[in-house]
């Protein structure tokens, strides 16, 4: 029989007391872990979206919603393609790339897909008018540390559609398949396919991004315009600035240049999600406050009550030779066990809740974050020990003579 077995036996003897004294900590940790997991993954998702879109500005039709853009803008309004020329001719500082896109619904071997026409970057260099506008010796943006753009080896592969949202070369009869389309259609590189009445060769299939791009089929913009008979229009123009600051500076200039269009930055596109993240982050701190105040007070009160009801036992232990330090440790170890168990169970409940409910709450897939889990359990344990310190100290100060008195 030692300190640990005394604590264990006492805890086993009073299971309901254990539950009631640690329930606040358990629920607090569960809520905190669930909210933090969803928040962290939501923030990562926003960050990933920002990263995948680069230092982008979107030029959209005046009445198009941002949601339409993320749904591939298949039924939205369109812009005249000549806006691309206007942007290039304006010679705005910091513009690195301009990528017009037209998205339409299409059927590929019975499969519903989004056909996105995109203008390859090589076509800009081929057009004399744009060369004279000096786009390909772009004006450097003040404060931008980036060297002027030269296409890298990576930019020359179709995978650049994922990494820099543009493609260097794409023939009129070539298509690039998103990962989902490739999986579901079973087409692979070099296959010949029929699309919108035209015949195409599959140039490449893209790796999975987890975005709407996985469901797209990319083809040359002008081929798509011809086959769909839309005329020279586009759904959106992505303007890639050389840096975030450049993007910010470009927005008012583009709005002035294209008053009948909607010009937004990527951060504006995701601002709703950023707002939700901020709210959830704030909520998680609020829950942490509740955990500290309610959980700590609840446990401190439970340990204090436990000390009161075990006064005779404490007196007996002291009479048979237990030191005040031993008595103090008896209650601190009990609190440590309660904090550890409540923290662990709470963490497990929070994790399961986040994994199951995360997609519904924030539309993001949630994976367990070991660091956060360990930190939550550690915080719960530390809080429990801290809360129990005062009642444990009072127990150690109890008068052992009380075991000679009737209680």
């Amino acid at each position, binding site marked *: *029989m*030692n*300190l640990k*077995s*005394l604590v264990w*036996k*006492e805890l*086993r*003897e*009073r299971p309901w007391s254990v539950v009631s004294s640690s329930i606040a900590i358990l629920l607090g940790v569960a809520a905190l872990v669930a909210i933090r997991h969803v928040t962290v993954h939501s923030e990562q998702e926003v960050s990933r979206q920002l990263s995948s879109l680069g230092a982008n500005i979107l030029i959209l039709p005046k009445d198009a919603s941002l949601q339409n853009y993320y749904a591939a803008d298949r039924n939205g309004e369109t812009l005249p393609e000549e806006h691309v020329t206007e942007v290039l001719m304006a010679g705005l500082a910091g513009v690195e790339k301009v990528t017009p896109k037209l998205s339409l619904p299409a059927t590929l071997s019975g499969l519903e897909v989004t056909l996105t026409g995109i203008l390859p970057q090589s076509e800009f260099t081929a057009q004399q008018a744009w060369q004279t506008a000096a786009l390909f010796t772009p004006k450097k943006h003040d404060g931008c540390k980036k060297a002027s753009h030269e296409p890298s080896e990576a930019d020359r592969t179709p995978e650049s559609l994922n990494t820099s949202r543009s493609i260097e070369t794409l023939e009129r009869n070539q298509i690039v398949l998103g990962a989902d389309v490739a999986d579901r259609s079973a087409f692979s590189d070099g296959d010949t396919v029929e699309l919108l009445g035209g015949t195409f060769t599959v140039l490449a299939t893209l790796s999975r991004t987890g975005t709407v791009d996985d469901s797209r089929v990319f083809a040359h913009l002008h081929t798509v315009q011809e086959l769909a008979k839309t005329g020279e229009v586009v759904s959106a123009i992505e303007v890639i600035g050389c840096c975030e600051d450049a993007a910010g500076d470009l927005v008012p200039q583009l709005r002035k240049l294209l008053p009948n269009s909607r010009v937004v930055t990527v951060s504006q596109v995701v601002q709703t999600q950023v707002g939700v993240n901020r709210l959830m982050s704030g909520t998680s701190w609020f829950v942490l406050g509740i955990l500290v105040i309610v959980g700590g007070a609840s446990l401190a009160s439970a340990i204090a009550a436990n000390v009161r009801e075990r006064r*005779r*036992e404490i*007196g*007996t*232990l*002291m*009479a*048979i*030779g*237990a*030191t*005040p*330090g*031993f008595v103090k440790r008896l209650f601190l170890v009990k609190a440590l066990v309660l904090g550890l168990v409540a923290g662990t169970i709470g963490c497990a409940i929070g994790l399961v809740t986040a994994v199951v409910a995360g997609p519904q709450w924030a539309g993001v897939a949630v994976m367990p974050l070991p660091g956060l889990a360990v930190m939550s359990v550690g915080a719960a344990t530390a809080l429990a020990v801290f809360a129990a310190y005062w009642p444990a100290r009072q127990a150690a100060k109890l*008068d*052992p*003579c009380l*075991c*000679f*008195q*009737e209680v």
Partner: protein
Amino acid sequence: MIRLENVKRTYSRHGQTVTALECQSLVIGRGEYVAVIGPSGSGKSTLLSLLGGMLAPTSGRILLDDQSIYEQTIDIRSAIRRERMGFVFQTFNLIPYLTALENVQVPLGLNGVSPLNQFGLASEMLRRFGLSDRMHHKPSEMSVGQQQRVALARTLVNDPQIILADEPTGNLDPASREVVLKAFDDCYDEGRTIITVTHDLTAAARAKRQLVLSDGRISNESTAITKAA
């Protein structure tokens, strides 16, 4: 040897100072069997607490083998109780959520005895008190007499030199009472010092020396038991 020198213990109650015990000189030799008798409130339990190192005197000194107990730190006093003293309580004070065996193991654990040795020593002591078949029973599952025997086993398991007993037969039936008194006789024969506080004059008569406490003072020793009887 235990010696009390000019010991006085007072309490403050409702703004008034009450003297619970006053003792100019008392010597209890090694191996003595002493019964302390007296009416309620006469200071018997106070004396026991003072001797056990749990209640510091307001003035005076209590010496155990010439070592002043209350000049030691609280941890050393705990060690003295753990290693040299054993307590028997009127209400047994067994820990309710532990079995008989575990209750007897507690003092061994406090003394740093290994779990394996704890089991051997504790089960042997329970066997000595005829409780082999009750080792894994909790106090609530045992009779009052059995509980006091478990308490005695717990007291003796660390082989203490001094036994301090507070009304050890107060709650017992005659048969259980006899078991306790027989255990004290055995301890006396083994050379231990026994100091028992009791209302039970028959039990007190088994002691070799009787002290009568009245209003916190020790009166004549030898005639006290005769008069009371």
